[in-house]
């Protein structure tokens, strides 16, 4: 009984880890630190776990989780509500649709896949901001944010791989 309960608890933690990683990404992206003197916008760290687990284990990162992480990003960044929530979900839908193609990518291809998903997310955010503010915002900050996030995905992917191998798998034991 205890074993079963213990297994169930660790399994739940393992299942929640992808979402926890996303939530941590939201918090870290909003910590007041600027390595480049504010020249570039903060990276969209929460999008990395969404993309990664949507590809490899969509059951651990379902669409409502992507919506919740986007809503958290909206809440903590102080912007208009729903912009990142919609962007994450639209991007999630694209990844889900093209999952077989994306999952087959390796090496630089994996980064290209992430870049494509990032492009969809940023384009959606740009269009929603243009619609809600009734004016086109400057395009450059969106491009810069995408570039910074893609660059950080190189180390981010290694970290997510590590978490997936060492924590999510052993905790769930059905890896």
């Amino acid at each position, binding site marked *: 009984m205890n074993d079963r309960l213990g297994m169930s608890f660790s399994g739940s933690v393992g299942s929640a880890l992808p979402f926890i990683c996303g939530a941590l990404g939201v918090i870290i992206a909003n910590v007041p630190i600027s390595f480049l003197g504010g020249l570039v916008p*903060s990276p969209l760290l929460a999008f990395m776990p969404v993309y990664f687990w949507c590809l490899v*284990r969509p059951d651990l990162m379902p669409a409502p989780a992507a919506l919740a992480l986007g809503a958290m990003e909206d809440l903590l960044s102080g912007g208009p509500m729903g912009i990142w*929530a919609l962007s994450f979900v639209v991007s*999630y839908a694209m990844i889900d649709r093209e999952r077989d193609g994306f*999952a087959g990518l390796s090496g630089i291809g994996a980064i290209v896949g992430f870049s494509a998903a990032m492009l969809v997310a940023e384009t959606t955010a740009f269009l929603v901001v243009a619609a809600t503010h009734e004016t086109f915002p*400057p395009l450059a*900050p969106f491009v810069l944010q995408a570039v910074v996030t893609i660059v950080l995905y190189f180390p981010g992917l290694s970290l997510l791989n590590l978490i997936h191998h060492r924590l999510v798998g052993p905790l769930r034991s059905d890896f």
Partner: protein
Amino acid sequence: MANGTWKIARGKGSPQLSIAIVAVLAAVLVVLGRAQSTLFDRARTYFSDATAPMLESARGPVNGIGHWVGGLGEIFVIYSENQKLKEENAKLRQWQNAALVLEQRLKRYQLLLNAVPDPSLSAVTAHVIGRANRPFLDTMILDAGKDQGIKPGEAVVDDRGMIGRIYLVGRHTAWVILLTDLSSRIPVAAEPGHIQAILSGDNTGTPSLETSKPGVILKVGQQIVTSGDGGLLPAGLPVGTVTWDGSQFRASLLADSTAADDVRILDLRTPPEQPPTPAATDLPVAAAGLQPLAPAPNTSPSTQVKPLQMPPGMAPPANPAAPPGAKPGAQAAAAPAPQDAEQDH
């Protein structure tokens, strides 16, 4: 880095349908965010209050890394930077002396003119615990809120100038909309000349300037300060200098929001303007030299005043409050409130 090495586990049911429902929910969230912003603002303040301890604990080590990484780059320019700072310091000392002399002169002129004193400002110092620099917004989270007396609309300054204003207040956190944010609009004035303008953020480092009156032209290098229009922001807060980017005037901001760790929140307390209490001579009946036909009923026997008895054939005095022969002190006592009238001279 291989995505293809993973076994893809699909969930049960129809994932496409689920995504469609979630997408509709997200769209509803956008629409509701526009229509019911107060509801989400409340949720946001609860969320920031709840995450404040996490943000504060993450702030220390991450800031340390940031300073360390930033410091590495500065090692190579430390000598030239030091020389430049020494020169700048010498110039600033001269300016400080000039400012002190001018401040004293200004106080003397204000005294001579009996000018209305500037509204008093109180300030609360707060730490920056969160900062969002996104493509369409520039905000900060501070660790001071309603419990510290913070109110929406108050100006936030760092040690150089204005940085933004408070737009949302939680119990112990507050949100600042920075001057560079896409939604930021504040009334400013370019000095000298006191040219009124609106400083509009567009998510670039230099917000744009639009003059209120057509035909008025700004000059590069003019100082920009808050104009105080609307009475929410104090007048005269330093903001930046006027620059030209080839197509429009912009403001090069003095404050550095990316480097600010501690900021001050200014509470503008404008004393409510009180109308002067009219003197007895200002009242129309008294000014016309008329006596009331019947004394006003007075129910309080202790405050009843006996009507002034004039001898037959004598004209009533021009000022009933100051009967002929009354001592100056008595006149002052009879007048309701002569202090205000005296202060005008």
